[in-house]
């Protein structure tokens, strides 16, 4: 049984209790301690900067050319905080409850409560950094509503909230780098985690410009490496987003939890061809004013504006009158897929549904709607050549966010001592489905406010350790493994590129471990993943060498890890005989097609232990106990 180390006391006192009793490191000792951070998104950058401010020696690694690129930058809609600035009845408990319910009661009460509890501080912090959130004329902050919630608690900066939050974090990171407290390694990729006597003690990294393999030691390692939705190839993620850091940690003993819980975002641009490298996200905020519909008639080819009201099916409003177009993402995505599968999809490939602003423009005027969504409308027009002012947008679901990830305890430590996982890289606060605008929040909370505190509790025992040497057998072995693998990729000299395998894997995952799954489909998926993996290791072609810039080599490493993770995801989805949140198993649904949870048998988090290449992973259960909230049927009707 896994122990999440949840502090004693009532829910609202747990984090306070923890902070009052955790161990501290005094300023003189912090200087003797090294911390490695992987990633500079909205979790990694704050973690690195805050630890630098505290006085630790921090090294931060990322594959992009500068820290401002991490994919948090692309989050559009907003960030939740239960400030109750709108006086609409919001409070920490409601925020906590909405998040827990949104996650279909598959997250840890204590963590989720803490997320809501700290949310207000994140907004304060961002504003102090100069993040230009939207304001009212009187000068106070503005809020908007978001999916799955009945209050306005979302703070936003036009449709570029993630960018502004990330640039705030980037600015404080730049300050720490300038002051010499944080050393930055851009264009570096972590290839191996080094574990010594059960503790994370460093990494092996590849300099992506020279190709050199480097050893870096530390007293603790923080993975802020993001989610792995790019495993579906077509996703809303960045081209470079990957699972490799997390997967390397998993292979060295860090459990992964809820791995098959993947959120498909309902409002993305549909795929238009095979060449396509990503699916662009249109913020969910659009659902505040846009109405989603499909023609009632199958295969209706009329221009959308020519289809009269009575021949349109506003299916979300019909099925979920209380939440309507603001139903949570998993429900909105699944409903869209149902309509598309039923032959009511629209657009040239019949793979989309309409998102219509006609009524909103009639009510508020084009100018007001432009103020709210102008940049999104421009982006849509740039990509598709069509104007949402004149005709409905076409949207479809795409892989977006991974609720699953490295299992962490209350301190955000993985099952490897001294290895932490923050932000999207961990499983934790979102359960089986994440609510909109909670992702920027979780990343920020983890990075600014949690890990800088909890890491002290661990590092207080490391003050006498001294510098970790890198000329040890463990570092030798880790480097050897990393180099051997790189050599292997190049030596296969097959016929197919890493990109080919990634695309194939994406298709398998989408069809077999996607928006909805069933036992037979998953079994078939596992078979296909194994075949593809075998083909990869016999027919892969990576041009060029190791000690130079080589994007194909980088891709090969990432795809190889995806090919292993895919099987774990399939296994996780197979093992859970229930539907919950984004995990919709077709065998387990109510008569009217809603997710059917099985609380008697599956009220736990599945945490998987790596047992060897191609071997069945070992299941560990973390039982979920709900002390405050009674899990109910998640209804948005």
């Amino acid at each position, binding site marked *: 049984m896994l122990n999440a180390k949840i502090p004693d006391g009532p829910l609202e006192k747990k984090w306070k209790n923890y902070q009052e009793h955790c161990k501290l490191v005094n300023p003189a000792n912090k200087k003797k301690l090294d911390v490695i951070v992987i990633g500079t998104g909205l979790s990694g950058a*704050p973690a690195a900067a805050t630890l630098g*401010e505290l006085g630790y020696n921090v090294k931060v690694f990322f594959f*992009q*050319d500068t*820290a*401002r*690129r*991490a*994919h948090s*930058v*692309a989050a559009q809609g907003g960030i939740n905080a239960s400030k109750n600035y709108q006086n609409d009845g919001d409070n920490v408990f409601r925020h906590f409850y909405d998040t827990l319910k949104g996650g279909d009661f598959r997250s840890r009460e204590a963590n989720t409560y803490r997320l809501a509890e700290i949310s207000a*501080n994140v907004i*304060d*912090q961002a*504003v*102090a*950094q*100069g993040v*230009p*959130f*939207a304001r009212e*004329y*009187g*000068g106070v*902050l503005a809020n908007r509503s978001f999916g799955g919630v009945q209050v306005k608690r979302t703070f936003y*900066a036009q449709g*570029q909230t993630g*960018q*502004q939050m990330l*640039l705030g974090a*980037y*600015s404080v990171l*730049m*300050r720490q*780098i300038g002051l010499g407290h944080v050393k930055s390694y*851009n264009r570096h990729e972590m290839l191996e985690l080094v574990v010594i006597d059960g503790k994370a003690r460093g990494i092996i990294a590849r300099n992506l410009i020279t190709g050199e393999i480097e050893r870096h030691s530390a007293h603790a390692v923080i993975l802020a490496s993001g989610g792995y939705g790019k495993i579906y190839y077509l996703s809303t993620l*960045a*081209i*470079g987003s990957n699972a490799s850091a997390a997967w390397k940690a998993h292979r060295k003993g860090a459990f992964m939890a809820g791995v098959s819980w993947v959120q498909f975002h309902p409002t993305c641009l549909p795929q238009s*061809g095979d*060449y396509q*490298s*990503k699916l*662009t*996200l249109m913020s969910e905020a659009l659902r505040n004013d846009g109405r989603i519909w499909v023609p009632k008639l199958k295969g209706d080819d009329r221009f959308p504006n020519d289809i009269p009201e009575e021949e349109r099916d506003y299916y979300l409003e019909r099925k979920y009158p209380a939440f309507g177009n603001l139903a949570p993402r998993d429900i909105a995505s699944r409903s869209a897929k149902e309509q598309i599968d039923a032959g009511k999809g629209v657009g040239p490939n019949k793979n989309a549904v309409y998102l219509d602003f006609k009524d909103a423009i009639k009510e508020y005027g084009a100018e007001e709607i432009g103020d709210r969504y102008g940049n999104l409308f421009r*982006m849509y027009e*740039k*990509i598709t*050549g069509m104007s949402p002012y004149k005709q409905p947008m076409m949207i479809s679901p795409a892989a977006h966010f991974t609720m699953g990830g490295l299992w962490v305890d209350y301190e955000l430590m993985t099952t490897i001592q001294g290895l932490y996982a923050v932000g999207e890289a961990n499983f934790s606060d979102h359960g089986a489905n994440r609510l909109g605008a909670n992702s920027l929040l979780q990343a920020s909370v983890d990075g*600014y*406010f949690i890990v*800088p505190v909890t890491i002290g509790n661990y590092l207080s025992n490391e003050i006498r350790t001294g510098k970790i040497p890198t000329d040890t057998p463990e570092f030798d072995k880790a480097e050897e493994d990393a180099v051997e693998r790189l050599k292997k990729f190049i030596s296969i000299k097959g016929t197919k*590129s890493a990109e080919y395998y990634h695309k194939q894997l994406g298709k398998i995952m989408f069809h077999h471990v996607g928006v909805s799954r069933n036992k037979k489909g998953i079994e078939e998926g596992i078979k296909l993943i194994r075949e593809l993996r075998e083909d990869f290791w016999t027919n892969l*072609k990576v*041009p*060029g060498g190791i000690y*130079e*810039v080589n*994007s*194909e080599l980088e891709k090969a490493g990432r795809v190889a890890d995806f090919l292993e993770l895919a099987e774990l995801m399939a296994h996780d989805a197979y093992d859970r005989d229930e539907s919950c949140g984004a995990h919709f198993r077709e065998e387990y649904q109510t008569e009217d097609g809603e997710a059917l949870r099985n609380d008697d048998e599956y009220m736990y988090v599945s945490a998987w232990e790596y047992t060897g290449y191609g071997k069945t992973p070992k299941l560990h259960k973390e039982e979920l106990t709900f002390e405050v909230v009674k899990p109910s049927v998640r209804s948005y009707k």
Partner: protein
Amino acid sequence: MNVTLKVWRQKNSKSKGHFETYKLNDLNPDMSFLEMLDVLNEQLIHEDKIPVEFDSDCREGICGQCGLTINGRPNGHHHHTTTCQMHMRHFEDGDTILVEPLRASAFTVIKDLKVDRSAMDRIMQAGGFVSVHTGSAPDANSLPIGKMDAEDAFDSAACIGCGTCIATCKNSSAALFTSAKITQLATLPQGEIEREKRVVAMVDAMDAEGFGSCTNTEACEMECPQEISVTNIARMNFEYNRALLLGKK
């Protein structure tokens, strides 16, 4: 559609570069410019050749990592776009397209179309921030900021750090990039305390990195994917002179 590409190939920062010609057939006009390069690379791998290195990440115009000089212009012949948001439908069937890295005195070519833009980070390190520690912030609504001020600050803050302005400028000036951050923070009360120190430090860093001077051609604004206005540069000059007058240098 079919196109002929003349692509800049350069082994590393020390070697001399040259153009190589490639032909691509049956392209879909809906693909983005970078997806077209993906197709080229698949073709090169198939032919046992070394693929073309180029940077990209989000491919939705917000991360700032991509950026190519297309037919002599950063990000191609459209104003206000990133390379990833440039689509093949804006080219003609049969076109010959010249593809080069972003060119600027302070950018070094790493390989092919990849360049080193880390000088821009160093400008930010000199002062592109408010010195606020985690945990020390007052309540967000304790500092009222007018809606218009917040929107103006946002317009400056929207910079994606792609370097298009620098590559566009005949002097390789980083004035638009640097001034956007200075203006954002000078517009907001949070930036007030370090206002003079910031502008002097950032302008000095910009000069030290080898960026050229601004001669007000305003070409940067024409190409900026985020439509950052050259009035930011005017504001930077004002802030700099103000700091000098106040004796803060």
